[in-house]
């Protein structure tokens, strides 16, 4: 072959994949140099969804940041809410009541299930398995109905508050959740049958986008993609927060670090998350959901209307914002995609002096050229899908 084409003049094709291309959801642009179907070079352009999140935070009070965090990873907004609230609470040095911790864990894990379902669904769809996509989207519907039942919203949840929660779980939540999780498992079984042993699917994802563990660490991988490479790092186990150290769950780990392992890790994490939710629902104690500390968490409305002290606290915290002490803090939690960290600096005022987010998908997106170079143009699809780049989080 090389003999016959030696004298043939060929040119590489440079092609813009995105920002408006079916595979570059989340709005990113790949500048791909192609030799036939092979990828010779690739440049990643991000920033199409930049909204100035960090600058917006500096102009809002600490509580007003909460709705902004919904828009980071918009597939699992509750985890962002929890991450930000935990960071601010650590900065202040307060601890929320036990029931609140359980509800936060349930919220996080439900979001994680929704995120993984969406991710696998989207990947399947882009590889042509439309039916698997719709099965998982339907399963996600059950989760979102649950989330709606306690937040009132499906996507922009804005549920968690600094020092507590917006409201308690509704009546009959446990039964509804167990029912929904059983339904999700049914869909999980269906998709497992459709994809996990499907030769075409395995051929597409096996040995594509492979990342050895050392390189994955040096790129800054976290979450399912790092675990797929064989590194059992999970913030929930490594640096337990909330009540994760009291719960019984496993961390699935891959072997080869390719797209198939990423898929398998996510599939298994769905099951592990349902386990966590079930345990949390079993053990959840009764009690308050908000801390009783009026300078940080609003008093109930009755108290605000009836008592002058509460009214004053309410007025001060709403108008000026709560005032964490001087200092800085970095707090990581395990988001669906990996380590989501909030780095906050307070100068004692009502607004964050600095609010920096460590998005889990930024290093993953940065490693795209490393993972697909030398592969086929079709390998971009499973690789980019299964790193689960979310524009809102990556570009902020």
């Amino acid at each position, binding site marked *: 072959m090389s003999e016959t084409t030696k004298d043939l003049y060929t040119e590489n*094709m440079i*092609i813009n994949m995105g920002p408006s*291309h*079916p*595979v570059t959801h989340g709005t990113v642009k790949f500048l791909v140099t*192609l030799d036939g*179907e092979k990828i010779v070079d690739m440049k990643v352009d991000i920033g199409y969804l930049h909204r100035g999140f960090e600058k917006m935070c500096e102009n809002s009070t600490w509580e007003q940041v909460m709705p902004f965090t919904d828009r980071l990873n918009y597939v699992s907004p509750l985890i962002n809410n929890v991450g930000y609230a935990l960071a601010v609470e650590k900065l202040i040095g307060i601890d929320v009541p036990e029931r609140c911790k359980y509800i936060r864990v349930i919220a996080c894990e439900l979001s994680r299930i929704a995120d993984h379902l969406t991710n696998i669904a989207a990947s*399947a*769809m*882009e*590889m*042509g*398995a*439309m*039916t*698997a996509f*719709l*099965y998982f989207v*339907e399963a996600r519907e059950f989760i979102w109905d649950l989330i709606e039942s306690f937040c009132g919203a499906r996507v922009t949840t804005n549920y968690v508050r600094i020092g507590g929660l917006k409201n308690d779980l509704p009546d009959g939540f446990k039964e509804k959740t167990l029912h929904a999780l059983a339904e999700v498992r049914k869909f999980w079984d269906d998709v497992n049958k*459709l*994809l996990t042993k*499907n030769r*075409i*699917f395995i*051929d*597409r994802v096996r040995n594509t986008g492979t990342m050895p563990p050392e390189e994955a660490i040096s790129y800054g991988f976290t979450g399912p993609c790092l675990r797929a490479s064989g590194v059992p790092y999970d913030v929930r186990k490594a640096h337990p927060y909330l009540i994760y150290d009291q719960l019984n769950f496993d961390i699935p780990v891959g072997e080869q670090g390719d797209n198939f392992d990423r898929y398998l890790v996510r599939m298994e994490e769905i099951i592990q998350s349902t386990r966590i939710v079930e345990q949390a629902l079993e053990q959840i104690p009764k009690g308050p959901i908000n801390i009783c500390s009026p300078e940080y968490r609003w008093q109930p409305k009755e108290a605000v209307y009836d008592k002058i002290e509460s009214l004053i606290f309410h007025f001060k915290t709403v108008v000026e914002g709560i005032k964490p002490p001087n200092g800085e803090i970095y707090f990581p939690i395990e988001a669906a995609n990996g380590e989501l960290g909030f780095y906050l600096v307070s100068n004692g005022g009502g607004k964050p002096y600095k609010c920096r987010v460590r998005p889990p998908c930024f290093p993953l997106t940065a490693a795209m050229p490393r993972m697909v170079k030398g592969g*086929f*143009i*079709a*390998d*971009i*699809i499973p690789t980019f899908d299964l790193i689960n780049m979310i524009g809102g989080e990556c570009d902020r």
Partner: protein
Amino acid sequence: MIADLIETIAKILFVFGINMGFFSPILGWVERKQSAVMQDRVGANRADIMGYKAIGLFHPIADAIKVMVKEDFIPDGANKIFHTLAPFISLTCSIVTFAVVPFGGQYEIFGHKVNLVIANLDVGILFVFAFASLAPYGAVLAGWSSNNNWSFLGGMRASAQMLSYEVAMGFTIIGVIMVFGSLRLTDIGMMQEDFFRWGIFLQPVGFILFLTCAIAENKRIPFDMPEAESELVAGYFTEYSGMKFVMFWMGEFLEIVTISAIVTTLFFGAWHLPFITDADLVNFFSFAGQTGSNFLAILVNVATFLMKVIFFIWLQMTIRWTLPRFRYDQVMKLGWKMILPISLINIFITAVIILV
């Protein structure tokens, strides 16, 4: 002479009518509705006339109106002639093939011998292949003339894929030809009068290989590399809109019908019901007189044939909505390294059995 002319025109009108008037609009609906049923959705049910929805059957009408009033867009720098020509090639190739597909046996109506096939060619199956191998020109020209990188990649993929699968398809069909000893599709159909002489029993491997190749030829999932909407936006017809786009679309749907018709003819007893010969049918309807019984037998033939075709359409739709897409190199590997050798072995074994 006049009777021949009337017969041919009637048959052309029938075949053309059933393809353009029934299959091509209805398949758009079937694709939507079947996928909806498979995926637990409601499916197409928005278009209504006076509040009456007819389980989404008005959608083809709505689609037709929509595409006819759409702008016919030709991108800058595109080769206008080829850009316009390509969809016509695609559509023509898939329609013309029906000329040689028999949909019934030989009967006598009003003392005139009727052969239920438009063109009873000696080389019927080769005619099918000839037009199947013209089809890539539609895709390649569309991809090349659009002046778009994605279209170009799609066109390249289409040419490579369709050419390689034609080779494999040709070899899979040789087994069938050896068994039946004829290239004329009517003869092949006639010989399957006996249920145990159906192609599927004589050439089981050939059937699976042929169906695989045919789906690959038609560029549908799992072989839709030339379109691959997540990779190449829409592949070779990225730059098409309005009526021209629909011509590709119709070409694809009619090719599903063609494949089903050919598979039925070669492997599933063509127009025959199991254990019932054409003579039996005529005898059964003998109460209706000579012409009447022949006419009723024709109706049964055509209905049987259409039912079988519809079954294979359903099968192809099910495959399309179940499987994910191959990668380009895997398709090539499958074609050249798996299907081609297996079909050669199939030919060899068939030859040995026939000799013995």
